[in-house]
């Protein structure tokens, strides 16, 4: 078993090396990290390691979107409101400069204390939040600014008003808009990539994941409640559906893993931001050579190829 997993990772690595998207030496740090991981690893991540990712991704001190904004973007100007009915605190959007280049950033935002958590709905946007993100992305498209999207949500808000305001439809429309954009887009899951609430802003040219982030179709608790009929089986559920970055990379769902300082991003936020900034810059540089139409065509082709069947 162990050697089989090792072989798979070796194969993955050799593929990564030959992929033009990794732009030769630019992502060599990442390759090295993967190589390290291979050396260290004789088997797939164990159930314990997967659960550790779940806990780290939800760690109370884990850096959130605005922590990275403060460290990565100059001249940050936050854009508020969806121009319809609300300013959703769970979704942050704005303009800023990344290495002197104007970008639009969208991302979910959680809160640190109870007031902020309430204000930001624990990072769970209403449809208004997705419309706010769409508004910012449309602005980016009009002016040719790249879009950076930071994903960190347990999921879209599950409430009566959210349903009445069209939660499902808005998530679909936000994806549809991203499938139409003619500017470079990079998404990175920086904590929890929870289901539809996450993919709504993650249909990007390059999708990255931080080392200890998780990306999943349902929360481990939700999955356990449905399939095991017992929410306390979350650990088992997580082990079964494998939301960790290594597995997402293996399945082709993400394009790269962004390293975190040891033991995880919250231990050294400045260093975590530096590493994230490096990966975002590399990804944007690679995308620069493509025209708008080409970006769009390749983006759609990439997502349309996802899935495993016989």
């Amino acid at each position, binding site marked *: 078993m162990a050697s089989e997993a090792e072989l798979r990772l070796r194969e993955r690595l050799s593929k990564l090396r030959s992929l033009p998207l990794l732009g030769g030496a630019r992502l060599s740090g990442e390759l090295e990290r993967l190589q390290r991981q291979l050396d260290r690893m004789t088997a797939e991540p164990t159930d314990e390691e997967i659960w550790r990712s779940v806990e780290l991704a939800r760690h109370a001190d884990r850096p959130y979107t605005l922590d990275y904004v403060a460290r990565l973007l100059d001249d940050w100007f936050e854009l508020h409101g969806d121009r319809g009915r609300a300013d959703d605190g769970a979704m942050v959007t704005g303009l800023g400069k990344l290495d002197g280049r104007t970008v639009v950033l969208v991302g979910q935002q959680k809160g640190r204390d109870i007031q902020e958590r309430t204000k930001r709905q624990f990072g769970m946007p209403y449809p208004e939040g997705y419309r706010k993100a769409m508004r910012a992305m449309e602005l980016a498209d009009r002016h040719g600014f790249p879009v950076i999207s930071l994903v960190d949500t347990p999921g*879209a808000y*599950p*409430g*009566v008003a*959210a*349903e*009445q*305001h*069209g*939660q*499902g*439809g808005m*998530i*679909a*429309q936000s*994806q*549809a808009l991203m*499938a*139409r954009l003619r500017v470079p887009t990079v998404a990175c899951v920086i904590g929890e990539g929870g*289901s*539809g609430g*996450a*993919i*709504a802003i*993650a*249909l990007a040219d390059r999708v990255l994941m931080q080392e200890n982030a998780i*990306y*999943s*179709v*349902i929360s481990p608790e*939700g*999955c356990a409640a*449905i*399939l*095991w009929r017992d929410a306390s089986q979350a650990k088992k*559920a997580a082990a*079964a*559906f*494998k*939301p960790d970055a290594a*597995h*997402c990379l293996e*399945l082709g*769902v993400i394009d790269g893993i962004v390293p975190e300082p040891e033991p995880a991003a919250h231990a050294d936020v400045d260093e975590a931001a530096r590493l994230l900034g490096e990966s975002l810059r590399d990804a944007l540089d690679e995308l620069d050579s493509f025209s708008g139409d080409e970006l769009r065509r390749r*983006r*759609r082709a990439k*997502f*349309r190829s*996802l*899935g*495993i*069947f*016989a």
Partner: protein
Amino acid sequence: MAEPHIDVSIETKDVPPAPRRDPNTCPSCQSHYRDDELEANLWLCLHCGHHFPMTARARITSLADTGSFVEEAADLRSEDPLNFFDLRPYTERLAEAEMSTGLGEAIVIGQAAVENRSCELAVMDFTFMGGSMGSVVGEKFSRACDSAIERTVPLVTVTSSGGARMQEGILSLMQLPKTVCAVEDLHDAGCALIVVMAHPTTAGVLASFASLGDVSLAEPNALIAFTGPRVVQQTTREKLPDDFGLAEQNLRFGHLDAIVHRQELRPTVARLLRLFDGE
């Protein structure tokens, strides 16, 4: 002798299981029917008009002109990329679903004509693992888009789904962007998408292609919600309105174009096909 049992629970997290109901008994007026009676009447209650769930095959028969349906991609089958095992292995669940429904997956696609207008049909089947969307459902829906593009005809899709298929993990979530991209290609090619939401259209399917129709129709009383009433109730403890998530509420809030009674569905779809034909 019966076991002595004293219930000391103050509040129970578990909702008591709904009493087992015969699938052919009308939940709103309790009338009971034989299969052939329902089949002869579009699976509608003869007494009160309740819409019983319809299988994909029955739906296609009711919509398409006789003999016009040519199925496509019927041989696609799900794999088990995660070796998923909950209480039972995923492969076992798949095999059982195929045995009991006679379908290869939770969606059937193919070319058809409705009142002599050509179109592509993509019809979901709730009886196949709750109509859940995994890799094969995503792929077949995308191929239906391509087939419509190739012939420059509209795509008519009937949705009925509990959402993404958890057993395929993150790959099932990726079927959302996949089907969205396919719809965008369809729209770029100038083809229309007509969506008919049958009970229930929820979660991942609602949050992807089902919400992107040029025209959105729904059947009466269909549950159309991203998050279902039970989860909303449990997470937020909000009091739910009586018609929470139903087609009627969705129409009132502006998320649908019309609620169409099943008897009117075929003529309505035909009218829309004529309208999109531009003649």
